[in-house]
C-alpha cells in the first residue's frame, strides 16, 4: 500500500463527503418538491452552472478512458478534441430554447417535452427508457473509475475486504444525493473541478519537463507507435477519416441527449446562463486535450498498465511523489461522484415522471413524486454497484459503447421537435425503433471472440466501397429516413397527429 497517497486521498475524500452532506442547507428549498430536489430549484447562475455542467460532462471515466484509448490506439483517440469542441455551438443553438419551454411548462425531463409536444405517451415512454438504459452503465463506469485509482494505491486489501473502499464511496454518494438532490453534486463540483485542474495543469507542465518537452514526447511516441506489432503513426491513415469524423460528430450530437447533461442545463437560472456557459465550457475541452496527450506521455515514460484504464494512474505514480499521485487519484475519484450523482438523479427523474406518474400512480402528490425519485436514485446506484462488483468491468464498458448509439436515437423527437412538429409521432416512434435496432445490431456484428470486444465502428458497404464509421450515426441516419418516409405516408393516410400542448408563447424567452 502506498501510504502517502492513501492519506492524501482519504483526507480529500472525507472533506468532500462533508461538503456533500451540506447540500440540503445550501440555497435552501423545499426538497419535497421534485424540481427543488432534482434541479436545485432552477436557480444556478453562470459560475455555479459552469462548475456543475463541466463537472457533469467531463466524468472520471472520461479522464481515465481517453488517455488509455490513445495509449492503446494512437491518433484515432484524439477525436475527443473535435467532439468536445463542436458539441458547444449546437448546444448554444438549441438548449436556451429547451430551457425556456422546460421552465414555462414545468418539465423535469426530455420525455416530459415529448409527451406534450407530440401528445404521445408511447414516445415519452421510449425516450425515458432509452435515457435510463444509456445512463445505468455510465454510472457503473464512474464506479469503475474509483476502483481503478483505489487499486493503483494498493488500497482495499484482498479477498472480502477488496471491495470495502468502493462500497464506502458508494454509501457516501448515495446518502448525500438522497438528502440533498442536485445541490449536493453542485457543491462537490467546485472541489472536484479545482482538484482536476490542479492535477492536469501540474502534470501537463511537470511531466514534459521530465520527459524532454512536448516536441520530444510526440517524436518518441511516434517512434514507439511505429514499432508496435500493429504499426501506428502520429497521423490518421486515410481509411480512418470516416471513423474519426463520424465519432466526433456523432458523439457531439449525443452528449446533450444524455439525461444527466440535460439535467445540468435545466438547473440553470436562465437561457442567458446557458449561452454564457457555452462560451466558457470549452476550457474543460482544453483540459481534456491535455489529458489526451497523457496517453502519449505514458508511452514515452514506458509505463506498463495491465489494462488501458490504468494508464493515467500508472503515469502519475511513475512521474510524481506518492502524495501528489494521491492528490490526483482523489481528483479522479471525487470526479466520479459528481456525474454519478447527477446521472442517478436524472434517471430517477425519468422513471418518476414518465413511468411512475404516467403509468403507476397518476394522482401522486408532489411529495410522493419527490420521495419516489429519491428512492429510485438509490436503486439506480445500487444497480450500478452490483454491475461493477459482480460482472467483469468489460460488461460496463461494452454496455456503454452501445448506449452511446442508443441515446442518439432520441435526437429527432427532441432537438428537431423543438423547432418543428413536421414529423408524425408514430413515424418518430418507428424511426426510433429502427435506429435502436441498428445501433444494437451493428456493434454486435463486430464482436471479436478472442478479445471479447465490440466496436462502435461499423464497416458499412455502399456499393463496392466500404465506409467504416460510428454505428450510432449510421443508425441515426436510418432513423431520420424512416421517420421522414412514414410521416409522409401517415399524413397521406390521415392518421391523427394528436394535439400540441405547447404554444408559441411557451418558447418565448422572458426578458
Amino acid at each position: 500500500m502506498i501510504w502517502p497517497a492513501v492519506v492524501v486521498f482519504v483526507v480529500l475524500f472525507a472533506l468532500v463527503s462533508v461538503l456533500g452532506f451540506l447540500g440540503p442547507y445550501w440555497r435552501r428549498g423545499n426538497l419535497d418538491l421534485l424540481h427543488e430536489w432534482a434541479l436545485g430549484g432552477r436557480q444556478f447562475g453562470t459560475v455555479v452552472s459552469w462548475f456543475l455542467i463541466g463537472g457533469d460532462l467531463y466524468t472520471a471515466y472520461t479522464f481515465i478512458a481517453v488517455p488509455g484509448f490513445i495509449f492503446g490506439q494512437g491518433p484515432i483517440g484524439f477525436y475527443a478534441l473535435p467532439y468536445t469542441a463542436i458539441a458547444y455551438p449546437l448546444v448554444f443553438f438549441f438548449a436556451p430554447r429547451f430551457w425556456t419551454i422546460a421552465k414555462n411548462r414545468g418539465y423535469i425531463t426530455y420525455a416530459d417535452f415529448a409527451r406534450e409536444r407530440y401528445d404521445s405517451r408511447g414516445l415519452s415512454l421510449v425516450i425515458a427508457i432509452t435515457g435510463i438504459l444509456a445512463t445505468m452503465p455510465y454510472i457503473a463506469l464512474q464506479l469503475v473509475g474509483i476502483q481503478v485509482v483505489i487499486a493503483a494505491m494498493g488500497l482495499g486489501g484482498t479477498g472480502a475486504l477488496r471491495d470495502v473502499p468502493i462500497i464506502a464511496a458508494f454509501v457516501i454518494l448515495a446518502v448525500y444525493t438522497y438528502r440533498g438532490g442536485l445541490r449536493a453534486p453542485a457543491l462537490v463540483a467546485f472541489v472536484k473541478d479545482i482538484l482536476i485542474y490542479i492535477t492536469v495543469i501540474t502534470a501537463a507542465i511537470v511531466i514534459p519537463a521530465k520527459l524532454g518537452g512536448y516536441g520530444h514526447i510526440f517524436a518518441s511516441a511516434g517512434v514507439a507507435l511505429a514499432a508496435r506489432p500493429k504499426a501506428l503513426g502520429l497521423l490518421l491513415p486515410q481509411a480512418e477519416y470516416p471513423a474519426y469524423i463520424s465519432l466526433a460528430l456523432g458523439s457531439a450530437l449525443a452528449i446533450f441527449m444524455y439525461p444527466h447533461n440535460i439535467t445540468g442545463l435545466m438547473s440553470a437560472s436562465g437561457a442567458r446562463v446557458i449561452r454564457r456557459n457555452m462560451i466558457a465550457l470549452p476550457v474543460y475541452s482544453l483540459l481534456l486535450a491535455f489529458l489526451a496527450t497523457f496517453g502519449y506521455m505514458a508511452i514515452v515514460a514506458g509505463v506498463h498498465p495491465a489494462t488501458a484504464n490504468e494508464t493515467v494512474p500508472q503515469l502519475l505514480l511513475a512521474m510524481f511523489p506518492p502524495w501528489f499521485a494521491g492528490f490526483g487519484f482523489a481528483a479522479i475519484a471525487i470526479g466520479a461522484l459528481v456525474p454519478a450523482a447527477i446521472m442517478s438523479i436524472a434517471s430517477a427523474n425519468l422513471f418518476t415522471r414518465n413511468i411512475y406518474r404516467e403509468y403507476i400512480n397518476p394522482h401522486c402528490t408532489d411529495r410522493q413524486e419527490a420521495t419516489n425519485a429519491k428512492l429510485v436514485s438509490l436503486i439506480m446506484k445500487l444497480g450500478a454497484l452490483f454491475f461493477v462488483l459482480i460482472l467483469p468491468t468489460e460488461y460496463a464498458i461494452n454496455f456503454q459503447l452501445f448506449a452511446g448509439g442508443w441515446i442518439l436515437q432520441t435526437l429527432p423527437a427532441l432537438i428537431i421537435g423543438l423547432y418543428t412538429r413536421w414529423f408524425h409521432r408514430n413515424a418518430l416512434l418507428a424511426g426510433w425503433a429502427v435506429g435502436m435496432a441498428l445501433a444494437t445490431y451493428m456493434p454486435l456484428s463486430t464482436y471479436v471472440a478472442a478479445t471479447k470486444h465490440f466496436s462502435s465502428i461499423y464497416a458499412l458497404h455502399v456499393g463496392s466501397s466500404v465506409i467504416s464509421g460510428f454505428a450510432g450515426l449510421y443508425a441515426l441516419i436510418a432513423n431520420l429516413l424512416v421517420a421522414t418516409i412514414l410521416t409522409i405516408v401517415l399524413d397521406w393516410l390521415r392518421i391523427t397527429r394528436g394535439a400540441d400542448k405547447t404554444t408559441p408563447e411557451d418558447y418565448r424567452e422572458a426578458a
Partner: protein
Amino acid sequence: MPSEGPSPGLPKTAGMLQHKRGADRRWYWLLLIPYVTMLWVPSYNSLQPSLAGIPFFYWYQFMWIALTAVVIWVVYMLSHGGRE
C-alpha cells in the same frame, strides 16, 4: 426612489423586450465554422507545419478548441450582446 425598488426595473425590462425582438440570429450561421474546420480532417492531418515540435494535427485541434469558444463568444455578442 429611483435608485432602488421595482420601479427602475420596469423600463429596463421593457427595453430588453424591445431588444429581444431585434435579437439578430443571422449571426448564428457563424456557429457552423468549427464544424467545417474540425471535421474536415484531410485539411489538417499532417505533421507540418509543426509548432515547437508538436505536429500540426495536434496543435491545430488544440487551437480550434479555443477558437470555437471565440466563435461562440462573437455570436453571443453580436446577437445578444448588451441585451442580456
